[in-house]
């Protein structure tokens, strides 16, 4: 069964550093998403991406965040100048058309 692949599975970074979280969506999917889940809290929408541009973003997705699809397979989330409160699980998801997502296994980001 096709999977969404995320790397790394766990990332530890110093406060103030930049991190890039990587995702390989399912190959024939057209819509890509980043969600995050702070420990013990809801899964929260960050951003959706379609046709090489952001289609929707939440209040969380401020100037500190950016997304990119640098080639035909990767979808990245960059967090500049990380803060302690950015520590969370970050999930990438993709879908073919209007329907359910397929989520990756997540990257656990720990900011120290």
């Amino acid at each position, binding site marked *: 069964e096709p999977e969404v692949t*995320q790397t790394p599975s766990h990332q530890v970074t110093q406060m103030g550093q930049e991190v890039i979280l990587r995702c390989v969506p399912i190959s024939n999917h057209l819509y890509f998403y980043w969600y995050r889940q702070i420990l013990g809290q*809801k899964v929260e*929408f960050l951003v959706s991406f379609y046709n090489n541009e952001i*289609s929707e973003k939440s209040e969380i997705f401020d100037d500190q965040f950016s997304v990119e699809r640098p080639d035909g397979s990767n979808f990245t989330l960059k967090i500049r100048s990380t803060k302690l409160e950015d520590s969370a699980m970050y999930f990438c*998801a993709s879908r073919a058309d209007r329907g*359910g997502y*397929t*989520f*990756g*296994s997540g990257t656990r980001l720990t900011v120290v």
Partner: protein
Amino acid sequence: GENVGLHLPTLSVQEGDNSIINCAYSNSASDYFIWYKQESGKGPQFIIDIRSNMDKRQGQRVTVLLNKTVKHLSLQIAATQPGDSAVYFCAVQGSNTGNQFYFGTGTSLTVIP
């Protein structure tokens, strides 16, 4: 926007019994609903979905019921097994909220052997 809540944060059931997990949503324009299962250390896994033109949908050992009048959604798991132990989320998408989903806080299901 949308406010999605689950009625119980934890649920314990005996192996073999049926489980019912509930979810409430606030936006009457919401028209697509998904139940996800999340095991420890993994991403949410699709279980079953339902659109607002239906009130019931069945899968393998799972049934989703939708009551649009009271904006309530439930997941029924028949003959619950130890492998069903996980956190279950409902996710709600509305026709007027773009293509993002709003997630509930999750119900942690524990199956007692």
